[in-house]
């Protein structure tokens, strides 16, 4: 804590020494910290270092090896694992494509659906409170339960979906067994699972809008769409940023839902990055799986950053 000579000279200059001393005390006191206080964050720093920093650094280390996860023998292979993922592994690129498609589908559908739900259920009537609870209910279920419930719904022989359709003479098909459609059916499940949670975020945003604005708009003759465009949307825009960011991360990491609904390993049509990484670990390719994990991490970071850049949704006037 050295003091700049110029500053020290200035501090000695005042004529009234007592006043100067008092000023000195006032100025220095905020920065005068007992060195022992620096010890207090140490446990937290140690925990973060042990559980986050160290594993991350280790993951980077493994990612440049061909370690199989248990053998004492391994080699450093540089960036080979990263190159392999993008140039020689169609299962990885397939999972990446599936994951991006899944994220896009879920983000669009979940954002729109949860906003519509929130708009319909904003009023604090008894009916809407009950409906809110109903739509929120899936959120409190475990993802494994959700996966098994929907696996049963989609079963082509005994499932609810086909049973209902058969009563009107329609065959709903194989659902998850149809490679071209499987991802869409899981996306529907994901939207059902999490829309209630996002609806709550939107409702919080909607309830913060002053009623007077709508009353004034109505007096000016604005129709519902104009009210939405000019009042509602600017106010809920920041909530949309949160919903989109959260849904993106959630959809990237839909590991338990996919594994529960599609089985382990999931077939190629339902393989996403997290399930692919899991399969690679299970296949005793630890080095390669670590490299895939790092790509996965970078992918989420990149998409989240891009969203923040592109979706700067703030209320008007901010």
């Amino acid at each position, binding site marked *: 804590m050295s003091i700049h000579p110029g500053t020290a000279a200035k501090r000695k200059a005042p004529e009234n020494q007592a006043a100067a001393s008092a000023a000195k005390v006032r100025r220095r006191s905020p920065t005068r910290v007992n060195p022992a206080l620096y010890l207090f964050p140490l446990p937290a720093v140690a925990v973060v270092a042990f559980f986050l920093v160290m594993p991350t650094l280790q993951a980077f280390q493994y990612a440049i090896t061909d370690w199989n996860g248990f053998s004492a023998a391994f080699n450093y292979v540089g960036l080979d694992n990263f190159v392999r993922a993008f140039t020689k592994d169609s299962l990885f690129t397939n999972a990446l494509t599936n994951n991006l498609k899944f994220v896009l589908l879920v983000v669009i559908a979940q954002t729109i659906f949860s906003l519509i739900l929130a708009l319909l259920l904003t009023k604090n009537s008894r009916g809407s409170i009950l409906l809110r609870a109903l739509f929120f209910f899936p959120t409190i279920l475990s993802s494994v339960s959700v996966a098994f419930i929907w696996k049963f719904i989609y079963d*082509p022989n005994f499932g609810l979906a086909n049973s209902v359709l058969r009563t009107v003479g329609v065959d709903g098909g194989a659902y998850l067994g149809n490679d071209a459609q499987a991802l869409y059916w899981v996306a529907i499940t994901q939207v059902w699972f999490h829309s209630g949670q996002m609806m709550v975020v939107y409702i919080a945003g909607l309830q913060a809008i002053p009623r007077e604005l709508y009353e004034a708009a109505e007096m000016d003759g604005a129709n519902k769409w104009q009210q939405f465009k000019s009042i509602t949307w600017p106010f809920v825009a920041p909530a949309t940023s949160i919903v989109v960011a959260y849904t993106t991360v959630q959809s990237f990491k839909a590991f338990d839902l996919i594994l529960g609904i599609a089985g382990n390993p999931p077939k190629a049509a339902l393989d996403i990055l997290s399930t692919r990484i899991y399969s690679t*670990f299970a296949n005793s390719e630890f080095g390669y799986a670590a490299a895939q994990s790092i790509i996965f991490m970078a992918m989420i970071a990149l998409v*989240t950053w891009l969203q923040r850049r592109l979706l700067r949704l703030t209320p008007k006037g901010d």
Partner: protein
Amino acid sequence: MAILGALGFGATAAACAGPGGSTSPAGASGPAAPSTGAVTGKVSFAHWRGEDKAVFDELIKRFAAKHDGVEVAQDISTSNDYNAQALQKLRGGSIGDAFATFRGAQFKNFSEAGIYTDLKDSKAVGNYQKGLLSAGQSGNNQLGLPYQVVFPMPMANVDLFDKAGAEIAPKNWDAFLAMCEKLASAGVIPISWPGGDVGNGGQLFNCMIANNAPVDDMCAQIEQGKLKCTDDWFIRMLNQYKDLKPFVQPNATGTAVEPAQNLFSQGKAAMLATGSYHIAAVRGLGAKFPIDLVFPNTTSDGKGKYEGAYNATFILGVNSASKNQAAAAAWIDFLSEPENAGYYANQTAQHVSVDMVEYTNPDLKRLSPWLQKKTALAARFQFNNLDVRNAVEASATAVISGTSPEQAAAAAQKIVDERL
């Protein structure tokens, strides 16, 4: 938050164990036999068969009655978790003094990791049928003892076959298809196939490939690039899968294993294309009819090399890192005695590879003649790379869902080529 989440998932998953700290390969000497000594203390028995827990509990009681001061605790995981995590759990030796492995990739990984001790000179090994021990061998060492004998062949509802006048032992592929035709004409689904379940749906592959492939180690050769999925024999097999399409239940590629079992146990389907390991489950669902096995003989002239398929699995071993090897080895010896193996077999409806076992379970009795037939050791477990195995088996599923055999084969070969 996103970055932290990804870090948490990726990094901690990758870092749950570290490389051994050396870049030199392990020594060339084989594993040592389990150490001897007093049979006391606690033994952890790691396996994945939760459905056998009560049976093992009874055997543990009988074992403890024989040896004062010994205690066996079962450490049971689900089969998927066991496949993915068992090796890491067992390395330290605190879990799994005695343990089981799947045949194939898992056994190979465990062997390479040096988890097994050599049971070549153990008391147990003499109790097994010699021909069934190969799945637990590595070089000159008998690392594990394959305990169960299962038949990964379609199970048949004999009553439905009788009603339809269908032949239960078709001699060639045309006869097999004619049998399916008769069953379909009788108003039942000929084959219930869990095409939506990668593991169980893949068992039919063992039958379909057995007499089609030019060599017995066909899957190992596919993985090594010596044989290809685009070879004529493989395409012929996929065309036979295509022949099966009218005879499996509608939307079979989306059917999980439980609904497939239900179709069979409710008498709506005449065959369940998984294997004898599902007998107990099917009985649990209320099936009362007599059950036999049917081999889809894919030959055109009936002169195939094999009459069926079997698998020797649940490979028992003693952990080289265990602190209580003497008691763990005694537990394996105990399980391998014909009387105890017989108890296990009859209670779980699983054949065992232990010799001189008396089968009293009616299903096992009925299926026992299959133990004497010329059956092929299940080929799908020759794959050591699970991505390759899944891709090759997925070609059959793709054909059932409507892809041409040539396209399906080319897609599978692409994955194989990438991993060569």
